[in-house]
C-alpha cells in the first residue's frame, strides 16, 4: 500500500513539473504565478499522500503551511500592483506568445 502511495505521489510530481515547465515558458509573469499556485496545490496533495506512506504525521503540518504560503504568495503578487483600482471592462485576451 505504501509503495502505491509513493507511486501516486511521484505521478503527481511529474504532473506538477509538466505544468510548471510549460507555464514557465508561457512568458507573462501572471502565468508564472499560476504555475506557482499549481505547484502549491500539487505539493499539498503529494505531502498528503506521503503521510500514510511514511507513517509520519508531521507532514500534515507541512501541507497546512504550504497551503497558507501559496495563498499569501498570490496576495503579495496582487499587492505588488499597488493601489490601482482596475476599471471594469473586457478582460484583456492575453494572447499566448
Amino acid at each position, binding site marked *: 500500500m505504501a509503495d*502505491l502511495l509513493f507511486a501516486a505521489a511521484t*505521478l503527481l510530481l511529474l504532473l506538477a513539473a509538466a505544468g510548471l515547465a510549460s507555464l514557465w515558458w508561457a512568458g507573462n509573469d501572471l502565468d508564472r504565478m499560476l504555475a506557482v499556485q499549481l505547484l502549491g496545490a500539487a505539493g499539498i496533495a503529494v505531502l498528503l499522500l506521503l503521510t500514510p506512506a511514511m507513517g509520519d504525521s508531521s507532514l500534515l503540518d507541512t501541507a497546512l503551511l504550504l497551503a*497558507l504560503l501559496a495563498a499569501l504568495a498570490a496576495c503579495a503578487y496582487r499587492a505588488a500592483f499597488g493601489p490601482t483600482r482596475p476599471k471594469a471592462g473586457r478582460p484583456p485576451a492575453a494572447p499566448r506568445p
Partner: protein
Amino acid sequence: MSLLASAFTLVFVAAGIGFFAAGTLGLVRLPGTLSRIHALTKADNVGLALIVLGLLPQAASVLDAAKMVAIWLLAQLASGAVAQVMAEAVMAEATLAEAKDAGDAAPPEESRP
C-alpha cells in the same frame, strides 16, 4: 477490512490524480489567463478533495483525519480567494498598461486612493 480500505483509497486517489491531470491540462491548454485561473483553482481542488477523501481510512488517528480535512478546507477557501486576487491582478495589469499608453499621450491622472 484493510483490503477494502486500501481499495477505497486507491480508487479515490486515482480519481484525484485524474482531476489533477485535467486541471493541469486545462491550465496549459486554455487560451486566456482568466480561464486558466478558473481551470487551476477548480479542477485541482476537486482533485485534492478526492485525494483527502481517499486517504481518510489510511489516517493513523482521528486527529490526523481531521487535520487532513482541515487542510482541504484551507486549500478550498484559499483557492477561492486566490482566484479573485489573480483575476484582479489581471485587470489591474491591463489598467496599468492602459494608463501607461494614455500616459504617453496625456499627463498621467492621479489614481484614486
